[in-house]
């Protein structure tokens, strides 16, 4: 579905991306993590053809992004930018969602149905002015107009920026739902809790190269790679790392509770056996 082969890219000021090769299959939920300036946004812009690789190839659904127009690739790729104000260009929320739908479909019944569904799912007032919404709401609107189209590939550049915890979980839930329907999600995220909760696979980027690629939990155990990318794993994972043996697979509160209970029971049994031994001795 997404195939990058020996990709190099530079803006004319030294190489931003170096020798990137990876394959992302249909239905995967991939997070790209790394420090600012590591090349995450550049990598995503290469995926939808906004940037063309200096060398190597980027192939999406059989289309080479080097030779395919971004507007053509947009039929199967939805891209959420960091700044929603660059995406919103209509006078009402309804028109904004409709704009994306009309670019993607010709069927008026389908468009009307998707529009109403999106408005009710996201809880938007159709006639409100998008530019009067808060930063978080504008971000949700930009995302809503993408989700309405149900693209095959959804690329999200920091989707939870400006959201409170509840908004963040709700929005990520919707993205996960779309992923559940078969869409591939590629997400840049600085919130490691969100990455841990939603991504199945993580690509770690540092100085323009992929330094680690694997399952989310596996990646959060690679201290060296995370340090190189200036990323800290979620606090619970850090605590589990320090506690060592018996806490290797701890990433959530429930898992931590279970692991502590197990350790306590083990120690209680050990104490009990020692006490029994002393009495009989």
């Amino acid at each position, binding site marked *: 579905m997404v195939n990058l082969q020996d990709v190099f890219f530079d803006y004319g000021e030294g190489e931003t991306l170096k020798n990137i090769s990876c394959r992302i299959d249909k239905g995967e939920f991939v997070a790209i993590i790394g420090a600012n300036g590591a090349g995450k946004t550049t990598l995503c*812009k290469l995926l939808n053809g906004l940037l063309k690789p200096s060398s190597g190839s980027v192939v999406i659904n059989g289309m080479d992004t080097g030779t395919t127009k971004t507007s053509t690739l947009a039929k199967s790729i939805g891209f959420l930018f960091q*700044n929603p104000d660059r995406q919103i*260009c209509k006078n009402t929320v309804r028109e904004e969602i409709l704009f994306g739908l009309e670019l993607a479909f010709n069927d008026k019944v389908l468009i009307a149905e998707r529009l109403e569904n999106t408005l009710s799912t996201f809880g938007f007032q159709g006639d409100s002015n998008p530019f009067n919404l808060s930063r978080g709401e504008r971000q949700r609107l930009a995302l809503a107009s993408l989700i309405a189209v149900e693209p095959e590939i959804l690329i999200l550049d920091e989707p939870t920026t400006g959201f409170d915890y509840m908004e963040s979980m709700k929005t990520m839930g919707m993205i996960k739902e779309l992923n559940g329907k078969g869409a591939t999600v590629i997400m840049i995220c600085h919130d490691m809790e969100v990455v841990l909760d939603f991504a199945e696979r993580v690509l770690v980027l540092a100085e323009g190269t992929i330094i680690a690629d694997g399952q989310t939990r596996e990646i959060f155990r690679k201290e060296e790679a995370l340090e190189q990318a200036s990323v800290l794993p979620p606090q619970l994972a850090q605590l589990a790392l320090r506690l060592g043996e018996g806490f290797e697979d701890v990433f959530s509160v429930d898992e931590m509770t279970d692991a502590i209970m197990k350790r306590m029971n083990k120690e209680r049994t050990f104490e009990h056996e020692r006490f029994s031994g002393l009495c009989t001795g």
Partner: protein
Amino acid sequence: MKGFLDYVPGNSFLHKLNPLTKLVLSLMICVACFISENHLLLVAIILLNLAIAKAAGILPRGLMLLKGLTKISLVIFLLQLLFIRGGDILITLPLNLLITERGVAMAFVIVFRLIGATMPLALMLSITQMNDLSNVLVTKLKIPYKYAFTLTTAMRFIPIFANEMSGIIEAQASRGVELDTRNIFKKIKFVLPLCVPLLITSVKKIEGSAISAEIRGFHLRTRESCYKGYPIKKSDVGVMFFSAFLVFSAIIVSGA
């Protein structure tokens, strides 16, 4: 990635000149361009601009400007060629359009003027810090700080807005709007509605800048607040004489 008006740091002779001198030089080059109708002088001024860019270590930017202005000039050249009439008729075209001797000469003059007069200001801004420019306007030309700040802020915002517009175009192309079409009319049709988000973002940015300026005590700033001195050195006097010579030459050549 730097915009075409962003400051390029350097240690050249031109960088070290007083900002006022640089301003005078660029304005005098513009004046010389508008005084003269002599093709050779106008071409010499364009070459002078490139020499300035080379001396300041920004030749690639100078060439980029020249390339951009040449593209715009082609349209202007064509219009002037078709609509200015005088002298001998060189070519007769359908729809009663004529290409005349004066039309050709004036088309070249206008195009050379456009290039020659636009380049120095852009080059001057590339080698002058905005703060220095506003300070010198306040201390040397006695312009109230409020107006000097407005002028330099307006110039500072040009590359920011250009960057914002390219971001908006990227975002809309990613949605499937055919902004990457080669058809110029289609492109204009798609770009025009994008002025709305650009306008809104711009107003927000300007409002944000105004608020932060107020918070940092903008109203307390006076002419005396400037701690940096901008003395006029011998090199500045030399460049100012050269500027005057340039204008004088244009007057002489056009009078001849």
